[in-house]
């Protein structure tokens, strides 16, 4: 079929769907390389507006396109109206840049950023006309490789991937691209890929695989000419990753182990990279990103330098520690913003010791006071419920802290000044490679009761409470620590109509329930499953670099309700992340 004909057919479909701009490509800074001999399709398995902002894919887009003869083209999961229309008209899934069928790619890279996108992975493969299972693929099919944080437990999707890449793509993924560029033939390529220490090739059994760590974390791999999304995207701003990794050691946090050790970029390089990206994109906002930007030791000079060059720039510092210093920094960085977010995660000291969130009641109260004093009129606070060994006191503590924040607001805000407190509580989901990987999720009944209590007990004047959808949290729990047996469940659920599970209005609980039941289990059984210290875990063959002993120690400390220090300041915790050139690297 000629490409012109395919284009006409795509255009005809676009006349009939919602938000057709999701599928047209052509944004500023998009790269087209018609002369390229290899095509790499990069997929975020969710809607365009979610996927386009993802940093990991922007990094890979630059990494692949930076190679001679190789083109990266983007693909997202078509919304159901588009998917239906494509199936009716037998239109294959196509890349945004050149509207080429995804099936013509040499490599299809799919990033797994969240468990609730798993059903979309199958949707993407099916729409592309690629056999779902790696074992059924033939010579004409692309090599399908997964990556991203959720790939750290590859078991639930293992049969659908030819290979799973572990860790950070910069530099290490080049070896994969070398194979694609230089080796012809699917079998030969797979054989060569199986030699890569960072690739798990499921067809070869559960072999050991290591996590790639980008030791240099050099600024040259930071994408400058990023694709500027059409206005529907969730984030429309320039961003510079100032630091990777976090050693605060919060025991629930997957990123807190998966991206160790901490590597900071020098402030001068951050400033130049930020200004360069602003001028290439036309954004009027710059975000300094990391897992906890207020911990970045170059933050003060970085802000000062940016403010000197661009005094009116809208500068945002997401993910800050709950303390007065970060509140003041955030306020200084951005005068336009009226709302600020604090994430105490837990409201009582006992629970913060259990999860190793080393902040005190006093720090939280002072941060709230500082936020209102700085003129913020909307305060958001994030918490989790369902954490291990949670009692009623912890849930009550969240309600009390909401009320206390309101009282502080009333005292600090000028008389008659309007303000609001927004309390958000998500449901704790245990994740692999964390000290809580052995814990079961709290039962649905428990979480329901806690949510109901909070709705009753939380006053409504000037306080808004939002609670996460329990149904999708339970599913996330069932998938996150699932084993090989979950693959059939995911396929059955997708065949039953499950897709876009993270979108409450799209969530098909019936399809998931039927799929788990058919496998002789249930969402709740999987989500609440506890592992013993001696049990083999589905992700044991994935060597994150963090030792099992460290995770077990931390799990023990959690039961003893004792927090652990941060190795940046309190001495090495012997977690195992550092080796050779890979170690914490701070600029100050």
């Amino acid at each position, binding site marked *: 079929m000629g490409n012109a004909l395919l284009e006409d057919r795509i255009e005809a479909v*676009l006349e009939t769907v919602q938000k057709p701009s999701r599928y*047209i490509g052509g944004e*500023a800074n998009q790269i087209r390389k018609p002369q390229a001999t290899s095509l790499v399709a990069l997929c975020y398995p969710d809607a365009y507006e979610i996927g386009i902002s993802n940093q990991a894919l922007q990094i890979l887009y630059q990494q692949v396109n930076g190679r001679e003869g190789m083109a990266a083209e983007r693909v997202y999961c078509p919304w159901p109206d588009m998917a239906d229309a494509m199936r009716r008209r037998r239109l294959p899934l196509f890349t945004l840049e050149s509207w080429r069928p995804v099936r013509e790619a040499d490599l299809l890279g799919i990033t797994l950023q969240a468990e609730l996108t798993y059903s979309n992975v199958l949707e993407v493969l099916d729409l592309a006309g690629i056999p779902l299972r790696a074992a059924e693929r033939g010579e004409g099919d692309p090599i399908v490789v997964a990556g991203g944080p959720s790939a750290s437990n590859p078991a639930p999707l293992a049969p659908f991937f030819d290979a799973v890449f572990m860790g950070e793509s910069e530099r290490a993924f080049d070896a994969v691209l070398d194979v694609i560029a230089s080796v012809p033939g699917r079998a030969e390529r797979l054989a060569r890929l199986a030699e890569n220490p960072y690739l798990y090739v499921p067809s070869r059994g559960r072999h050991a695989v290591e996590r790639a760590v980008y030791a240099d974390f050099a600024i040259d791999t930071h994408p400058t000419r990023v694709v500027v999304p059409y*206005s529907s995207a969730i984030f429309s701003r320039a961003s510079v990753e100032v630091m990777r990794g976090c050693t605060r050691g919060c025991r629930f946090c997957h990123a807190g182990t998966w991206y160790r050790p901490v590597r900071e970029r020098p402030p001068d390089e951050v400033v130049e990279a930020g200004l360069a990206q602003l001028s290439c994109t036309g954004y009027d906002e710059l975000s300094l990103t990391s897992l906890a930007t207020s911990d970045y030791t170059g933050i003060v000079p970085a802000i000062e330098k940016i403010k000197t060059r661009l005094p009116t720039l809208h500068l945002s510092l997401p993910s800050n520690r709950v303390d007065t210093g970060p509140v003041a920094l955030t306020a200084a960085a951005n005068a336009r913003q009226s709302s600020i977010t604090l994430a105490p995660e837990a409201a009582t000291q006992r629970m913060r010791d259990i999860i190793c969130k080393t902040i005190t009641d006093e720090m939280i109260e002072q941060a709230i006071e500082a936020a209102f004093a700085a003129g913020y009129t909307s305060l958001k606070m994030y918490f989790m419920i369902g954490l291990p060994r949670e009692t009623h006191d912890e849930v009550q503590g969240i309600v009390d802290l909401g009320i206390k924040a309101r009282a502080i607001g009333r005292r600090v805000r000028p008389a008659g000044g309007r303000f609001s407190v927004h309390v958000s509580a998500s449901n704790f989901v245990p994740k692999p490679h964390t000290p809580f990987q052995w814990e079961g999720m709290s039962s649905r009944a428990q979480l329901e009761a806690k949510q109901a209590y909070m709705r009753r007990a939380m006053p409504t004047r000037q306080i808004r409470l939002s609670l996460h959808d329990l149904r999708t949290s339970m599913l996330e729990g069932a998938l996150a620590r699932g084993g090989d047996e979950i693959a059939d469940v995911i396929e059955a659920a997708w065949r039953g109509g499950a897709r876009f599970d993270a979108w409450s209005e799209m969530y098909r609980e019936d399809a998931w329930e039927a799929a788990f039941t058919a496998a002789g289990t249930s969402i709740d059984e999987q989500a609440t499953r506890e592992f013993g210290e001696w049990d083999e875990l589905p992700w044991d063959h994935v060597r994150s670099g963090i030792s099992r002993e460290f995770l077990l120690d931390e799990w023990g400390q959690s039961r003893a309700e004792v927090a652990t220090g941060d190795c940046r300041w309190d001495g090495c915790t012997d977690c195992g992340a550092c080796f050779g050139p890979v170690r914490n690297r701070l600029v100050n």
Partner: protein
Amino acid sequence: MTYRITFAVTGRARFLSHLETVDTMLGALRRAGYQIALSKGMKPRPVISLALPRAVGVQAQADLADVVLLGDHDPAEVAERLDAQLPHGIAVVAVEPAEGAKAAARVDAAEYEVEVEEDVDWERALRAFAAADSCQVVRTAPGKPDRTVDVTRYCSNIEHEPGLLRMLLRMTDAGTARPDEIAQAVAGLEGRTATIKRLVRTRIDLRPQPVGART
């Protein structure tokens, strides 16, 4: 300084929504090195307005945007630098300094070309349309009661040439009509449904003064 940008939207870019078109224009202006004036008030917004929103899927040959840039610039240079930054499918036709009320307040009419199949006797249908006192169209919208509208009063001119209907639609205080609506209304007079292949807005006519302005 206010500049009036005349621009064309073709190809895949016609699938951009009105809001996306505005944002695309703003981003391109910033990348071209221009600073856009901000509105006054609690939530300052860049000062830009498109004369007429463009429905998703409709092409345009000469749509209009008024934007206020900081500083004085050579309009020809604005045109060149902006054009270089716009995505494929959006092209600058002209830039000129604008004075007086913004274009959005002065739209008088818009001309459209509707590409149609020749499965309707368009000449006869158009004669019937011209002779009719009124031509009622039912507008449906989700969650709202159906509304019947006489579209003849909005269509000040309509011509047919093979494969094409060219029409001039008036923007009035009471509203206007969509080009596809007119095509269907005309085909309906022959008891047919029009097969529309393409919609192109060819120009937007402005009044010298805004509607209701005191002179």
